[in-house]
């Protein structure tokens, strides 16, 4: 029986680090509320997805080693992103198929990795949050989180516990938003078409706020919403659950 | 080296082995000799009910007769209802039925000018509302050329799943053609709109006997 409480290492994710630190701080607040201590190892930059999905396995391996080393002393590795979490949990093992020692290390590492909302509900057994957000909100199911990590009910369960929050489902919530990492830069016309379909579905719900568990998706959708003059505001699910929405929404200027 | 040898050789190379051993082959032979029965969809205990329900769902129709001798009579009624000439092309097994002079029947392969064909089924499948027809039993063209195709199915012939039909078929030689027919001909190639009678029959009707 361990005498020290389990230590959680926060995997910040490169997008959160660069563009929306508030998501990281929201994650910390939530994990602490759940009764765990959180630390952020500094030797982290990126999970390696951009390299992996571009076919650069050597770079991906180096980044994987860097991440696994940075997080070796934590009981849990938690990321506020389904795609980063699935990279750590399911794809690191693919990188070391041919090396038994590193493969074992990656397997042990994988067992400790979680996406934020499912960590809160499935591990911390959090039933509700103490947040207030009296808005009509719709949730987009980011692809990796949904299909690789099985994240569907968990964020909804927690969102439904937020005071005043009215959760409405959009049509095709499980359909891709068109971000796909470098895809949206390499094939912008196709990406725009896909995100436009998503925006139409968002508008159909009359939601005031869009949320999801992946910042890449959110920036992509926020960018299209804003370009088309939409009034829909975009927040990461961690920000809503942690009651840290008193800052401008993603892509929004101060005072909007 | 022939392409045959080339292809077989490459297969073995890709699989990382040589020719299969005698033991391995005997395991495969055993599987072929006793084909495994896999998961099957559940079917109503009332096979006739499921069969006729599915038939209608796929756009086929059916009627009942108590016994075989009533078939020609039922046929005449149907043809009159559909306002079709009383001329049919049938398979040889139906020759022995008590035909009257009212209906002209021919026993041969179908021709383009035939409007109505009547064939006896080898089996039927309740799972999907399917009738199974064999070329050894009735000419295949009867199933496709005329616009109206009537199939005689005896209630006892209705099996729950397709696998039972294979079991029955294994008792004899495979014919040139086994047709599993589930409803009339259809297409959705124009604007995803279903249209019956693409190239095969527009109308499929089952006469259930028994």
């Amino acid at each position, binding site marked *: 029986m361990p005498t020290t409480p389990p230590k959680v290492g926060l995997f910040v994710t490169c997008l959160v680090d660069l563009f929306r630190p508030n998501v990281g701080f929201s994650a910390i607040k939530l994990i602490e509320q759940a009764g765990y201590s959180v630390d952020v190892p500094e030797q982290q930059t990126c999970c390696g997805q951009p390299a992996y999905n571009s076919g650069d396995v050597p770079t991906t391996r180096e980044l994987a080693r860097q991440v696994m080393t940075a997080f070796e002393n934590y009981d849990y590795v938690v990321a506020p992103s389904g795609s980063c979490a699935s990279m750590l949990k399911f794809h690191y093992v693919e990188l070391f198929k041919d090396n038994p020692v590193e493969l074992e290390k990656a397997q042990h590492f994988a067992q400790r990795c979680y996406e934020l909302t499912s960590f809160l509900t499935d591990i911390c057994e959090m039933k509700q949050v103490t947040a207030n957000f009296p808005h009509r909100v719709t949730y987009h199911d980011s692809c990796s989180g949904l299909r690789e990590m099985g994240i569907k009910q968990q964020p909804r369960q927690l969102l439904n516990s937020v005071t005043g929050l009215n959760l409405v489902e959009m049509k095709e919530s499980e359909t891709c938003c068109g971000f796909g990492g470098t895809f949206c830069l390499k094939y912008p016309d*196709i990406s725009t078409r896909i995100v436009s379909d998503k925006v139409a579905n968002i508008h159909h719900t009359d939601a005031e706020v869009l949320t999801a568990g992946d910042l890449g998706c959110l920036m992509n959708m926020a960018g299209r919403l804003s370009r088309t003059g939409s009034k829909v505001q975009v927040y990461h699910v961690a920000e809503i659950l942690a009651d840290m929405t008193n800052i401008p929404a993603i892509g929004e200027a101060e005072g909007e | 080296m022939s392409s045959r040898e080339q292809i077989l050789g490459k297969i073995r190379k890709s699989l990382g082995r040589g020719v299969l051993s005698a033991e391995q*082959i005997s395991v*495969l032979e055993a599987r072929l000799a006793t084909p495994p029965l896999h998961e099957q969809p559940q079917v109503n205990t009332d096979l006739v009910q499921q069969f006729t329900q599915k038939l209608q769902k796929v756009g086929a129709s059916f009627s009942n007769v108590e016994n075989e001798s009533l078939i020609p009579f039922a046929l005449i009624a149907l043809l009159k209802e559909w306002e079709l000439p009383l001329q049919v092309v049938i398979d040889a097994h139906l020759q022995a039925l008590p035909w009257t002079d009212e209906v002209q029947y021919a026993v041969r392969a179908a021709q383009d000018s035939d409007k109505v064909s009547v064939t006896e089924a080898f089996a039927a499948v309740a799972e999907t509302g399917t009738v199974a027809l064999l070329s050894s039993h009735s000419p295949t063209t009867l199933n496709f050329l005329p616009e109206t195709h009537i199939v005689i199915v005896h209630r006892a012939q209705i099996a729950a799943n397709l*696998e039972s039909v294979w079991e029955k078929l294994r008792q004899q030689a495979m014919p040139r053609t086994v047709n599993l027919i*589930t409803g009339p001909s259809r297409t959705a190639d124009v604007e995803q709109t279903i249209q019956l009678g693409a190239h095969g029959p527009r109308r499929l009707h089952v006469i259930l006997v028994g």
Partner: protein
Amino acid sequence: MQINSPQFKQRATVALQDMRLQKALSKAKGGFIDKRLAAISALPEFEALRERGKAIKQHTLENLDFYLERFESKVIEQGGKVHWASSSEEACQLILEISRAANAKVITKGKSMVGEEISLNEALEADGFKVVETDLGEYIIQLAHEPPSHIIAPAVHKTREQISDLFHEHHQQYGLTQKLDTVPELVNEARTVLRSQFLSADVGITGANFLIAETGSTVIVTNEGNGDLTNTLPRVHIVMTSIEKVVPTLNDATTLLRLLGRSATGQEMTSYTTFTTGVRREGELDGAQEFHVVLLDNGRTTMLGDEFKDMLRCIRCGACMNHCPVYGSVGGHAYGWVYPGPMGSVLTPLMIGLKAAQDLPNASTLCGRCEQVCPMKIPLPTMLRQHRINAYEQDLMPTRARWALKIWAYFAKRPALYQKLASIKIGILGFLGGGRGSFRYLPFAGAWTKNRDFPAPQGKTFMAQWKARKSA
């Protein structure tokens, strides 16, 4: 078939602006998706069948030589002939020889994707044969001189008006001069025109959905009945197929049929599922008197030994492309060859080369919906990524992208340096964008800002703030 995959990007852009195509695509997409969902929801055993289907195919592939040889001997036993073709050219050659020997004038065809793969029609027509596609969708695109845009519904990109125009133009020669409008009228006219072709054919060529080793049968799954008229009426019947179609027994085929119909069109069984075995028997009154099966390799034996082995399980249902957001936006022609959508993006590089087909595995968000709906549980995103890995190793990545990646990687591997630089860069961006909240334009991110605003960063990186708090 002409290869246009290198022009994927341009073709995709054109497709996105083609309003008629977009209208056709959204109609088709909804239909296929809803019908499939209804069919599988009504079958509690569906998941178990998927596992079983995967196991059947895996077993078969492990013993592919045995099952192909067994299939061959059974075909011969029933009076048929089996021809093995390593390459597309060889397959065409074999079929040309059979058709010449038959003194054929008219050849009818059932739908065959393998036929497209080997450019069969072009070869036959060049040799002077009249080739008539009889599947309605294939017939339509044959008139339009276009390739198929979907493996199940080849003319899915055509509207009713376009089909009406095509028929009006091409049916004059049969004395059919009326311009038709409704679906029933169009289908009926096609029925009439094609019926006379069926009856005049000397050779009929069909594909095969499955080959049964147990009995030496070839199986076709159709709704129209054209495949059956093609394989029954002519004196000579040729099945143009490929080696991975074989399954051990009738029972195995039945499991796969249960998966195929539902996944493709939402049907439990198509109108016609036909098992053809050998030649017309003694005493039978119709049926082909010559039966040939041409077995094509064209790279499949290589796939059997590499990372793409699982792709050989594909039963060509089309579910992946029906659910793909990319296919759904651009349609099949953008992919530039025979096989579109996710399965096409895996197969095309293997058959026409990675260099020519490079865009296909890259034009994907790896959303994973294809794998989710694949009845054979094929890990499509993994194989798309494998193509990207192979492209990187073969140095096929465009130079600019490769360098951008290298530069980014240099910093990502050095956290302290990365974080210092990021702090500065983000500080600048945050300062510049903070007032508006988003950038309407950003240099180096033109692809993004063309149609989207770029959300401005908060201004201080997380790591900078974290470090500051810790030292406070």
